[in-house]
């Protein structure tokens, strides 16, 4: 039933008869401190296998949701009944993992997934000749920092020198210094370095289509420019949001150390400055994600996934817009099974309407006013009605640059950026037990560090999640 909840979270369902109030908000109003709500909203999969099919938690909820009332429930009835239904199954253990639904909600694990349950085994500490088990261990952190940021372990002699430092305060200061040194190395920031690896899933390179350096067989665009901007934004006291808001390009120069310099023009890039939005409008993004399509839904969904951590294909980040999808390009997305996601996706995609992908050379990878009218007149009779204005997080955005700005300033961007580093350095996405530290860390990226990744990294290596063996 939460199917409306989380479907309505944003509401997977589009047609008027299916549109539901923001049920995720109802859920989060009841459980405001649940980790699921602190760093976002529960996805549809919290209650569904795939809407409308429910998982075991969703089925239990449905049974308690205004039993006997005619279906479908009105929005008002649904909203009124949901808190009571949630309360009714709090004591149950829907997934059979011996942990109640309520405790799972409070701890941030999944009440419908048997393999997901709180794992806060008491940590007793104790003696270990090499590690302070269960306590923050600065010596252990030193070894990890060198491996994670420089790419190698300290030698035995280096560890002896480290051990000889006066006290833990001196050792922590030394680790901070080493971190700052390591992030200038090519292991971290160089070509194919750690930051490039962080960017792979966002850029999705294809060597055969690459132009410029390391050119492929069908050179269409140079994604090294995207890596350059990504690395620039994540280093040297730059604002990390520039990865999707920059109206400039970045040039990579040299090695050991590799430099990334801001430039106003690159021969490999064609979008005019007034319409640039960092990597959202790079030549590679337009080539690979817009390609030949009139309405580039793929580009919008990939940016949503890559920079906001919201994968519509996994029913994440659904914020249904009333009266959407309009289906201007006549793809049939108003079908019930499609509309659930397209009510969010299509308004996300409209701001891309004038960004051209692969075309004749002089038209490729650039912003072209009236692009749909000029290049896709026969796509559909209503294609020219496609607006440039769209919606992101339920908020109107007039252009793609507005889209980028709203996205970059959102909590989702902070959560996504921090999650990337958490996975890289801790080794997995934040767990329920790590949620408190995780929330503190992503919030500080904005409030304390003004979107500078350097501060985030120093915070992260001080967490218990990173530093307690």
């Amino acid at each position, binding site marked *: 039933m939460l199917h409306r909840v989380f479907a309505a979270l944003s509401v997977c369902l589009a047609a008027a008869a299916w549109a539901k109030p923001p049920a995720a908000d109802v859920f989060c109003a009841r459980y405001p401190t649940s980790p699921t709500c602190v760093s976002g909203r529960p996805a549809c999969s919290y209650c569904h296998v795939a809407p409308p099919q429910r998982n075991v938690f969703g089925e239990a909820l449905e049974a308690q949701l205004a039993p006997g009332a005619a279906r479908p429930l009105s929005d008002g009835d649904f909203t009124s009944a949901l808190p009571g239904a949630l309360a009714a199954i709090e004591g149950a253990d829907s997934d059979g993992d011996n942990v109640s639904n309520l405790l799972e909600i409070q701890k941030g694990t999944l009440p419908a997934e048997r393999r997901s349950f709180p794992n*806060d*085994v*008491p*940590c*007793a*500490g*104790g*003696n*270990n*000749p*090499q*590690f302070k*088990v*269960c*306590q*923050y261990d600065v010596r252990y952190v030193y*070894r*990890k920092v060198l*491996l994670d940021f420089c*790419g*190698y*372990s*300290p*030698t*035995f002699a280096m*560890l002896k020198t480290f051990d000889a430092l006066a006290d833990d305060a001196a050792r922590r200061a030394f680790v901070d210094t080493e971190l700052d040194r390591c992030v200038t190395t090519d*292991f971290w920031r160089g070509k194919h370095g750690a930051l490039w*690896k962080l960017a*792979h*899933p966002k850029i*999705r*390179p*294809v*060597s*055969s289509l*690459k132009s410029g350096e390391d050119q492929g067989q069908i050179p269409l665009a140079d994604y090294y420019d995207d890596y350059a901007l990504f690395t620039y934004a994540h280093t040297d006291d730059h604002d990390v949001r520039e990865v999707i808001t920059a109206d400039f390009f970045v040039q990579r120069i040299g090695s050991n150390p590799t430099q990334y310099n801001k430039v106003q023009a690159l021969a490999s890039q064609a979008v005019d400055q007034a319409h640039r939005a960092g990597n959202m409008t790079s030549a590679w993004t337009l080539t690979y994600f817009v390609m030949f399509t009139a309405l580039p839904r793929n580009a919008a969904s990939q940016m949503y996934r890559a920079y906001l951590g919201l994968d519509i294909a996994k029913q994440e980040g659904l914020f249904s817009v009333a009266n959407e999808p309009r289906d201007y390009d006549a793809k049939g997305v108003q079908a019930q099974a499609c509309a659930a996601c397209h009510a969010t996706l299509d308004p996300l995609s409209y701001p891309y309407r004038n960004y051209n992908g692969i075309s004749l050379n002089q038209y490729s990878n650039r912003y072209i006013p009236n692009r749909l009218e000029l290049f896709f007149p026969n796509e559909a009779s209503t294609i020219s009605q496609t607006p440039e204005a769209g919606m992101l997080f339920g908020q109107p955005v007039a252009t793609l640059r507005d889209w980028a700005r709203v996205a970059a300033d959102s909590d989702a961007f902070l959560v996504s950026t921090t999650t990337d580093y958490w996975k890289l350095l*801790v*080794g*997995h996405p934040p767990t329920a037990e790590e949620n408190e530290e995780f929330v503190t860390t992503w919030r500080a990226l904005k409030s304390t560090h003004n979107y500078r990744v350097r501060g985030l990294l120093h915070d992260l290596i001080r967490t*218990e999640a990173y530093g*307690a*063996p």
Partner: protein
Amino acid sequence: MRLELLAVVSLALCACPAVTELPDAGGSGGGSATGGGAGGGGGSIDLDAGITRSAKGRLRFKGNERFTVDLAVGLGGTVDQVCKELGQYDCSFFVHPVALGGVEPYGVGLYEPPSVTGATTSLVVERVVLSACTARINADLSNPAGALIFKGVPVSGGKLSAVDGPGVRALIVDLAQRGWLRDPSEAEVAELVQLARDVEVAQPNDAAKQWMQAACFAVFSSAEAVFY
């Protein structure tokens, strides 16, 4: 032999199904104790071969780059000298990078490393370590005057002249410091000395070199050297 080493030296961090509750664990003061840690409010301490094991289990495989660089540095060589398939193709960066936890984004579209080690990971780790160890041993034995690691061990007739001698012990200590970044325990030294004796029986004609390979392999392919 290697598993025994792991039990002694490596499981300090990783969760092992074979947990031994020791009534007296020497320095730890007992097999069951209570205490407080950053992670919680206290409880029973699990001991693994006398070492407190972590409840966190946060060990991570080093992955192809870190593993190979550490191996190269530990054995005093360069990354290029660690391992080549057919003498030409780099094992860690060209032939087996994915098995070693790396990515292949540009050609294959593998953008993120696998979250767990694969079925072939241990095979590749052992193949790479054995290659690197053999290269170092051959280099050292062919040029004793310039030897870096495998030196100062008297050999007679292909066998170690004195298995219990200071040369063997010094070599074990050096390997441990290079691979584990610490001194070996007496138990670990004893294990590797016993290995020398075992090898001498099994490989009487080439026992010294065979033991060097086995000892190097045991240290650098151990969980402690491969995980962090």
